[in-house]
C-alpha cells in the first residue's frame, strides 16, 4: 500500500476532479432532458472550479462557482421552467449530422494534442503566494487591464439593455403601427 503523502492526495483529488469535470460535461451534452443537462453542467463547473483551485487560483475558482453556477445555471433553470411547461424528449439527430460532428470534435482534440507536442512554452517562475493573490489581480485590473475592465463594463451594460429589450418584446405586444412615417 503506497504511503499517503500530500502529493499523492493532491494527485488523487485532481484525478477525481478531472473525471468529475469531464463526466459532468458528457452528461450535460448527451442526456435528453434539459434539466438533467443542467445538473451535469453544474457538476462539470464544480469540477472545473476545483481544478482551478488546485492550480492555485482561489479567486477565479470562486468566480467560476458564483457566476456559472449561481448565475448562469440558475438563469437557465428559470428559462427552462418558463419556456417548456411539458417538456418532451428531443429526437436524436440523424447519423448524417452526428458523424461529421463527432469527426470534427475528435479531429479538433487530436489536432490540439498533436500540436501541443510541438509547443514550446516559456517556463514560469516558481509559485509565490503574493503573485497569486487577489491583491495582485486587483492591481492588474486597475493598471495594465484598465481598458478591458472599462470595456467589459460597456459590454455588460449593453448585454443587460439588450436582454431587457429582447425580452420586452415577448411580453408587451407592439402597438399597431402601419404607417408611421412623419
Amino acid at each position, binding site marked *: 500500500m503506497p504511503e499517503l503523502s500530500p502529493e499523492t492526495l493532491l494527485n488523487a483529488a485532481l484525478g477525481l476532479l478531472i473525471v468529475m469535470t469531464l463526466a459532468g460535461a458528457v452528461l450535460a451534452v448527451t442526456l435528453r432532458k434539459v434539466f438533467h443537462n443542467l445538473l451535469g453542467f453544474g457538476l462539470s463547473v464544480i469540477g472545473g472550479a476545483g481544478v482551478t483551485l488546485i492550480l492555485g487560483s482561489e479567486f477565479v475558482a470562486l468566480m467560476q462557482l458564483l457566476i456559472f453556477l449561481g448565475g448562469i445555471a440558475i438563469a437557465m433553470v428559470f428559462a427552462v421552467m418558463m419556456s417548456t411547461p411539458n417538456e418532451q424528449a428531443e429526437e436524436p439527430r440523424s447519423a448524417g449530422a452526428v458523424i461529421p460532428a463527432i469527426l470534427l470534435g475528435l479531429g479538433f482534440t487530436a489536432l490540439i494534442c498533436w*500540436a501541443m507536442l510541438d509547443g514550446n512554452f516559456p517556463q514560469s517562475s516558481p509559485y509565490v503566494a503574493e503573485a497569486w493573490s487577489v491583491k495582485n489581480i486587483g492591481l492588474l485590473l486597475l493598471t495594465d487591464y484598465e*481598458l*478591458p475592465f472599462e470595456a467589459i463594463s*460597456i459590454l455588460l451594460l449593453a448585454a443587460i*439593455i439588450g436582454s431587457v429589450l429582447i425580452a420586452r418584446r415577448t411580453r408587451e405586444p407592439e*402597438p399597431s*403601427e402601419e404607417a408611421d*412615417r412623419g
Partner: protein
Amino acid sequence: MSGIYLRFLPELGLLGLALVLFFIAVGPGQEADEREPADSRRKRLIRAAIAGDRVALVGGGVVLILAILAVRQAGPLFFGAYRVALFSQVIKIILAAGLFFNIWLAQEAQSLAPRERPELMLFLSLSTLGMMMLVSADELISFYVALEIAAYSLYILVPLTRGHGDHNEAAFKYFLYGAATSAVALFGMSILFGLAGSSSIPQIATALSANPSTLAVTALLLTLGGVFFKLAVFPFHFWAPDVYQTTSHSVAAFIAGTSKVGAVAALLRLLLMGLSLDQLYWLLGALALLSMSYGNLAALAQRDFKRLLAYSGVAQGGYILLGLAALDSAAYAAASYYAIAYLALMLLCFLVVIELGRTRHGVRADGSTDNSLPIDALGGLYSRSPWLALALMIGLLGLAGVPPTAGFSGKWFLFKAILDQGGFWWVLIAGINNTIAVYYYLVVLKAAYVTPAADGATAIETSLWPRALTLSVGLGVVVLGIAPQIIMPTLQAAVSAMIGS
C-alpha cells in the same frame, strides 16, 4: 485638452453618442401608460423615434469629424493595451463614415418598430465603438472584449425587427454560432497567451517568430476563426444568408458593410502576430479560394436579393482573404482598399433594399415579418425610380469589378499584390470566379433595367436624402476607382508603419 484625450477622441465621441441615445431609449416618453389612447401613444413613440434618428445622424456626423481630426494622433494608451497609429486612425475614419451612412440609411426605418429605433441607433454606435477599439487594441484581452462588444450589439439588433417570425431563429443561430466561434477563438487566444507568456500582441508576435511551431499556427488559426465568422468567409458563413434575409434592412446593411470593414481590420491586427508563419500563406489562400468559389456558386441559385448579397459577401470576403494571405504590406493595403470599396458598394445596394422595403408590405398575413426581397421585386426599377436603379447599377457593377468603379481597381491591386507573392494560379481562379459572379449580378441588373415593371407597381418616390446618398457614395466609388491615389498612398504608409512597428 491633453494629448491622451485627443488620441481617444473618436471613441469618446461614440461613447457620448451612445450615452445620449441610451437616455433617449429609456427616456420618459418610452414607458407604456394604460390610460393613454393607443393612437396618441403611437404618435408620441414616432416623434421620439424620429428625434432619436436625427440625434443619431448628427452624432454620427460629429463622430466622423472627430475621427478625421484625430487622424494624425499616434502613441500608446492605457499602459500599452491600446495603440493609436495611422492605420488604426484611418480605419476609424472609415468605420465612422460607415456608421454615419448606416444611420443615414436607417432614418425612419420601416422594418423596425418606432419604439425600437433609438435602440437600433444605440447598438449601431456601440458596435462601431467595439470595432474601433478592436483596431487599436494592442493586447489580447482588450481585443477579445472589443470583439465581443462589436458582436453582442449585433446579436441584440438582429432579432429587433417587427412582428414574430423566422428572424428569431436566425437571430439565435447567429448568436449561438457567434458565441461558439468566439469560444473557439478564445481557446486559440489562450494558447497564444501560453506560448508567449503574455497577452500583448507585439510580444506574442516576437514569441511566435522566435518559435514558429505547429501549435502556434493552429492557435492563430483558431483565433482567426472568430473573426472569419464576422467576415462570413467559408466555412463560417452559414449564418449570413438567414440573417440578411430575415433581419431588418437597416441592420442587415450594417452587418454587410461596416462590420465587415471592422472584421478586415481585426484580421490585419491578428495577422501581425503571424507574419513569420509561412504555413498561413497556404492555409489562408486555400480558404480564400474555397470561400469565393463556394459563395459564387451558392449565389447563382438564389432568388432573394438579400440572400444573394449574403452569398456574394462570402465570395467577396474570399477576395479580401486572398489579399491577407499574401502576408505582405502591399497586399494588406490592397485588402484595406478593397474593404473600403466594398463598404461603399454595400451601402448603395442596401440603399435600394431599404427604399424598396418602404414600398413593400413588410408584414405577412399571419403577423410575422417579411424582410426578404425577391429579385423579381426589382422588376422595372428603372421606370419606377431611376435614382435607385442608378444606385443599384453602380453597386452591382462595382461588386462585379467593372471599371470605372473602385471594385475594379481594388481587384487589380489585390491581384497584383498576390501575383507578386507568386500566386499566378490563384489570380486565375479568382478571375474565373469573378466571371461567375458577373452572371448573377447581371441577372439582378437585368431585372432592374430590362424587365418591365409588374402590373400595379407604382413609381417610387425618392426623397432628397436617398438621392444625395446615391450621388455622394456613387460618385465616391467612381472617383476612388479612377483616382485611387487619393487614398492608396495613405493606406500603404499606414500598413507599412503598422507592420514595421
